[in-house]
């Protein structure tokens, strides 16, 4: 299953309740088992709250988790 992007148009429809703005795509650092990678994910431009969609969490993120566990 090709999963080309961490941000889908429908993710940017979500609005941050605290800041009342729409999410935008931007860089964010993810960490697991001592390794860090920087990727682009939807987030609130004000407070930085990051959305991990179901497709990302169960798709590419789960794959990266397993890849790092096998290290």
């Amino acid at each position, binding site marked *: 299953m*090709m*999963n080309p992007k961490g941000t889908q148009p429908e993710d940017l429809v979500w609005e941050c309740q605290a800041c009342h703005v729409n999410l935008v795509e931007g860089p964010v650092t993810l960490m697991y088992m001592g390794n860090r*990678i920087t990727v682009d994910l939807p987030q609130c431009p004000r407070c930085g709250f990051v959305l991990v969609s179901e497709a990302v969490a169960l*798709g*590419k993120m789960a*794959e990266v988790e397993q890849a790092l566990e096998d290290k």
Partner: protein
Amino acid sequence: MTAFTARALSHVPHVLRGITGNTLRPGGLALTERAADWCAFQPGARVLDIGCGLGATLMYLRDIRGCRACGLAISAQMLSECRGMPVLQAAGDILPFYDKCLDGIFCECVVSLLVEPPKAFREFCRVLRPAGWLVLTDVYLRNPQSGAGDLAASATCLSGASDNTELMKHLNDCGFDVILWEDHSRYLTELAARMVWTLGSRELLMQLLFPGGCSAENKQNMQGASPGYGLWIARLKGPKR
């Protein structure tokens, strides 16, 4: 998952470019910066970047550190990528330079691509000034005794990776003192993780690295040999400044 090398990566620049910010190698510019600091290259220093790729190191050495840096690329296509910077097309083991004319050589993720690294090292020796610097970053096998013998024959993408002891010995035999060696395998791991992220699955990464498919045996050899990533800083033996 760290199981790929510069050779495999050199086939897939379209995926890598986005990930590594035009450096086409694990760690991006972090190791370049570390090495340039260590060697304390001054503005005006003559530095050659062998296998300059898309010119990221070159740009850093020229624009940030003010070195008189020059690049070397083996393919005309790569050459055309580094417009506006001095880049020569030549092989790493026949350098178009006078004897003892360079202060330093960067050789990032290139040695594993060379058929005969000692030959290139002797050539570096020739063109470096006494006590000149050689900076290497590359993949290496952390567990060379485990299946590595079969690896050279079987998994082509790893065939260039050598083990640390062997590389150190070559450098020493060719006239270098290895001043610094550091393991930076985390960069390789993180690059692999980043590629899995971009591609979407581990399976697709394997397909990319082994376009013809990877046998279970190759996979096991590869995992057994445990590819890692390292930084070597060596200095030409001889009279000190």
